[in-house]
């Protein structure tokens, strides 16, 4: 009996080891000299679906958080007031940590998983792109409310939410998906305004039911090198 377990254990270890070896060598080969070809993303295609699953492993935690009732009922208007136009990178509405830091860990410690930030009494929104670590490249703080000269800029209307083809059918996706194809990040965090919050974050394959109703036309011709 004892021997059998030892043999099973031995084989399990052996198969794990061989899987590790084969895979590391495969991965290494890919990352070596031969990665010359740089894939050109294509604006006339649906964004790759893998982004949708970025937070899949956290779905249950997100659900628990949402259900725990510990959430702040933020309004959609506050959400849009931080963006110059729908789709623009939002400004940083709080003191932006160490000025000299380009972002990275300083920002991600709250914004990677949407943790509760006691200093601000709020849950942090989850970033849909935690792999981009030079955060202040696009997100800047607000240090004054004035303008250098008056500006008549007005934002365009936000895409409407909750559009359904049939009564009871799943709502469609009305916003552009570039850099925002990680659905759970914005729709299932505790910082998500109630109106756009998903009731079922555990169903991680969002685009199985929610189709894109894109409001963009005349996308330039496709170019691949």
């Amino acid at each position, binding site marked *: 009996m004892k021997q059998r*377990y030892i043999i099973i*254990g031995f084989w*399990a270890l052996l198969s*794990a080891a061989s*899987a*590790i070896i084969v*895979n*590391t060598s*495969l*991965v290494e080969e890919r*990352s070596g000299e031969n*990665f010359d070809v*740089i894939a*050109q*993303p*294509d*604006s*006339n*295609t*649906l*964004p*790759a*679906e*893998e982004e949708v*699953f970025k937070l899949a492993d956290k779905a249950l935690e997100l659900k628990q958080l949402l259900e725990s009732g510990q959430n702040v009922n933020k309004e959609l208007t506050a959400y849009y007031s931080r963006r*110059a136009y729908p*789709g623009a990178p939002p*400004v940083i509405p709080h003191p932006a940590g160490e*000025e*000299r830091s*380009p972002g990275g860990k300083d920002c991600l410690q709250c914004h990677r998983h949407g943790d509760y930030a006691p200093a601000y009494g709020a849950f942090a929104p989850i970033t849909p792109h935690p792999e*981009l*670590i*030079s955060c*202040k*490249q*696009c997100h*800047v703080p*607000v*240090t*004054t409310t*004035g*303008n*250098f*000269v*008056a*500006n*008549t800029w007005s*934002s*365009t209307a936000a895409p409407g939410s909750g559009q359904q083809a049939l009564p009871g059918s799943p709502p469609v996706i009305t916003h552009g998906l*570039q850099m925002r194809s990680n659905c759970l990040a914005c729709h299932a965090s505790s910082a998500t305004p109630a109106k756009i919050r998903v009731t079922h974050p555990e169903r991680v394959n969002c685009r199985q039911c929610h189709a894109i109703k*894109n*409001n*963009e*036309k*005349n*996308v*330039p*011709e496709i*170019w691949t090198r």
Partner: protein
Amino acid sequence: MMNRRIFIKKTAAFSAMAAAATMVPGILFAHEQKHDNPASDITWHKAPCRFCGVGCGILVGTQAGRAVAVKGDPNCSVNKGLLCVKGYHQIMCTSASDRLTKPLIKKNGKYVEVTMKEALDLVAAKMQETIKKYGKDSVAMYTSGQSTIPEGYVASKFMKGAIGTNNLECNARLCMASAVAGFLTTFGADEPMGCYEDIEHADVFVLWGNNMAEMHPVLFSRMLDNRLRRKNVKIIDLATRTTRTSKAADISILFKPQGDLAIANAICYELINNNWLDKNFIEKHVVFFKGKTGLGYGLEDKFAFKDEPEAIDFDQYKAFLNDYRPDKVEALTGVPAKEIKYLAALYGDPNLKVVTYWCMGINQHTRGTWANNLIYNIHLLTGKISQPGNGPFSLTGQPSACGTAREVGTFTHKLPKGVVTNKKSRELAAKIWKVPYERIPDKPTYHTTEMFRAIDRGDIRFIWIQSTNPLVSLPRTSRYRPALAKDSCFVVVSDVFPTPTTDVADVILPAAWHIEKSGLYGNSERRTQYWDKMIEPPGEALPDAWMTIEVARRMGFAKLFPYSKEKHHEEIYNEYRQFHAGKKHNMAPLSVLKKQSGAIWPYIEETGRSTLWRYNSRYDPACDTTKDFDFYGKPNGKAVIWLRPYEPAPEMPDNEYPFWLNTGRVIEHWHTGSMTRRIPVLHQAVPHAYVEIHPADAKRLGIKHNQKVKVISRRGQTVLPASVNDRGLPTPGQVFVPFFDENMLINDTTLDAFCPISKEPDFKKCAVRIEKV
């Protein structure tokens, strides 16, 4: 307690998990699928970004005749869909309330609105009258690295071909001239050999005098992304100040101002004395030269300099480097010998691919040409050049510093191909322009600093400034602002917004902004990008090119400017392309540029491909195919390693003025801020300039963060709030000020010393003192 059964279960589970985890990187999801976009109301148009020289592809969304949104163009290989905060918000400046929409003429000290016809009539009449009275060389044009290719081209044709004067300069003299002179002296041909794709291949990045996280943020992110994806990628920040770049880098090395010259030579000393050389490469592709030393600094009017190159051999070069043993130069550089040795070891390791990036720290330097040469020396000694992931790469700050200023050649000594001193270049220009060959003068006249000095002296009596704001961006504006305000010079300024430069203009012409006209830009990696007009310019605003054409026609040169108002940018580009025909610099045709997000020259029409790495016969068909590398800019096909020593800066801190003053930018603002300060998101992030002081200096002087202080030099003074231990941290004894703020003009204090070879001023080094207000 764990029994055997649980142990075995756990072991099995663990091994399964481990196996699965290693397989995850290989997991593939359903691939991208095509789909037709349903019609709606936002239309997207492609263009290059209006701001820096990176040249990101943007998509501008328009709706009912208004630009409403911007996103990164995922089809553009430069940025792959990502932008920076300036790029995303650029269109917001078009709705600023003080937009120039009507021409203004100064009458009795007051600006009066006139029609465009009246304004252009006056400009042409004034220009003609000045030429008649004072000669051709009394009129000048000062353009920009933000001028489109057609705008730069008609300016050159107008001044050099039609009027017949070399009084044409542009603001790229303030940022790129040393890079140009460096390329020409080392390789005989301008612009980088590599391209941005180097980022995906390199193992080591040396950022030399360049705060890339704030100045070239999209490329910086591409580099960080590369470091995340691959092992052993190292980023080294070599600078005089701790910045966001230093924070993100693996290693930050701080050196004393002007110490860069000694550091580069010390690295070469190490390479040679450790035998970390590519001997085969050196033997086949490199020659050694030395030039004059003790060049001076151009501080006096009418300063002249001519280098005298002299061939030397490897042993002479090696002997010269003996003065630069790393421990010997520690005092000059402030860098411990072991750090220089470490850098040399990285450059010298044949298994590592190294890219060096630099920008204004190296170029804005009284020995800027030398500093560029010295970086090339390192890459030439190790043979790390013109290959994927290996090479020196000079970054640019303006969207068309390469495309317009350098390639069209809006400098006094340049023609669209070659230089005015070359007979063949003049003959080619005369032939394409259809002007008599004798009309193009064979001597350069004024470079930028000297042009504004000539205005001060009264030698230049008329100047037309397009798309730039010299009274914020020139060094020593405390001299040149009163100069330009003098009655002796008639000043015409074309711009989109009022600036301190339009404040002294006699005529202000409203210009169309970026997407309100069609045009072409050329970015740092030799990529030419085209865009179509997307929205109408407001009021009477016109593209700069069209205003130049209108004035030229009024002056009797209608035959030379037969372009149509609707298609002039295309007709001009097609005419301009003739200059660069041939394997070495072929520009992509318009039909290609309209389709894709730019093409890198030399463009190979047979295959429809860009040349990504020049001088390497594997990639560049202009090379002699019997050689592996061919530096065809030089007649013998060999690049030059220059013997360039350390020389001190013209003005060093002393008892009276104990601080170095360094100037530069912040990510939110672009150059003189005339656009970015009018964008609410950017202004609200950084509403004004400041002076960064090291905490120890601040403590000693009793200065607190945000307290107002005076920065005083021998030339002028500026009052700014102090910034202690905030975004940037200068070394003790140094202060830093961003120059975007027209209300706190730091250039009133800077020094107008320049590199005698490139004539590019040094905005990074002069002596100041700090006083509490």
